[in-house]
């Protein structure tokens, strides 16, 4: 399946579904090391995104249009740090995807822009037990897959697999950014909820492309 506007819409719908399915898990992860609102907030945000998507009278012309709708809706409905972080990620990704269809380099640009947005907004780097620990390896894997001649779907699959490994890698880390940093060493042994939701969202990006 090509990575086009229909893919973007499918990705968003699948994202809403997976967030709803994992809502309680995300709440629990966040309760362990944060303020316990990540699952509920993201679920509310993505539900609002789907409502807006349903209300569209015609399919957007560009992938960026879909991602921009996600960005602005998440920012105004999530209500926690995930709102501005994912909001900025989708917004930057939207700017990088003013096209009806993406080739492999375009998919890389989307993921790198999202990572840049999260880093710019959260001022986090890898190893601080945040969603950057999932996004950063995802971007690296996307570059490698594209350089190796992979299709757009292959690039998404590589990114999703790397995000999953990246999320796992947050477990032994003591948080130094975000709400979990108030816990310091006590955050060791817990999966970061933001990295986990990143893993879920990127898995659906790959699945929507049939990868």
């Amino acid at each position, binding site marked *: 399946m090509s990575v086009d506007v229909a893919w973007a819409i499918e990705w968003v719908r699948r994202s809403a579904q997976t967030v709803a399915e994992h809502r309680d898990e995300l709440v629990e992860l966040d309760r362990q090391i944060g303020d316990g*609102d990540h699952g509920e907030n993201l679920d509310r945000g993505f539900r609002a995104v789907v409502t807006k998507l349903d209300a569209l009278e015609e399919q957007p012309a560009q992938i960026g249009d879909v991602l921009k709708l996600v960005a602005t809706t998440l*920012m105004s409905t999530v*209500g*926690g*740090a995930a*709102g501005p972080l994912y909001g900025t990620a989708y917004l930057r990704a939207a700017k990088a995807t003013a096209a009806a269809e993406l080739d492999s380099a375009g998919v890389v640009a989307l993921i790198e822009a999202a990572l840049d947005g999260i880093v710019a907004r959260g001022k986090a780097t890898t190893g601080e037990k945040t969603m950057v620990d999932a996004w950063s390896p995802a971007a690296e894997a996307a570059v490698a897959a594209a350089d190796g001649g992979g299709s757009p779907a292959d690039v998404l699959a590589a990114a999703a697999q790397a995000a999953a490994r990246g999320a796992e890698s947050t477990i032994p880390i003591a948080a130094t950014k975000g*709400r979990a940093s108030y816990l310091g060493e006590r955050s060791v042994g817990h999966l970061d909820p933001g990295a986990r939701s990143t893993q879920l969202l990127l898995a659906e990006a790959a699945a929507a492309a049939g990868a």
Partner: protein
Amino acid sequence: MSAEAGSTSSRDVARVALVLVSHSRDLAAGAAELAGQMAPGVLLLPVGGLPDGQLGTDFDGIERAFATATADGRSAVVVMDLGSAVLTAESVLDLADEELAARVRLADAPFVEGAVAAAVTAHGGAGLDSVLAAAEGAGRMYAGPDGDGEAEPGAGAPGDAPAEPPADDGVVRETRTLLNPMGLHARPAAVIARMLAAYDAKVTVNGVSAASVLALMKLGATQGTELRIEGEGPQAAEAVRVFTTEVERGFGEI
């Protein structure tokens, strides 16, 4: 909760408004109430919690507050509490039009102390940069006894004689005993800071800036404390005179 115009004195509503962004509706409202008590002429816009009252940060609410704060030619300083309040305020600013964004500053400041310091400074008619500096300076109050950075070098040396007006160094010095039973608490501290904002003079009390409510409060001056008041600048004599008069009348509390 917004303490708009006309609630006090002959002053105009301050040129700089404050937006107080918190995860909690009560916390934002409480900070606005506290700051408003000391700065009734400042437009204070609390944005706390989600629209349904839950804990969280309200993007649309912040957007509206920025618009209100910067209306009528005002500029605005924003004080925020934890993480997502900061991230959301930054995001709103990123998406705002440049003309509005240019008149809004996000303060890297402790929520309550920053709000109070900024409000009192804004009430004195200060501009955007001064109000921002007051908010951010409030954080340094915790750096330790000498960490406020506002004490004049050499000021407050023990044994200063209570000399009468201008000494050779151009400094106006007076000493008065604090009469207020409750000491130099928030209200009189705010009275001092506000009153002195009207004068072109740099005034210190026992070595700390009399323009800073927090510095004054931190003196911990109780009833009977000797206050060494020193003023420098073109209007130092007038500033020190109104100050000593207020001390003598117990800031209207006795």
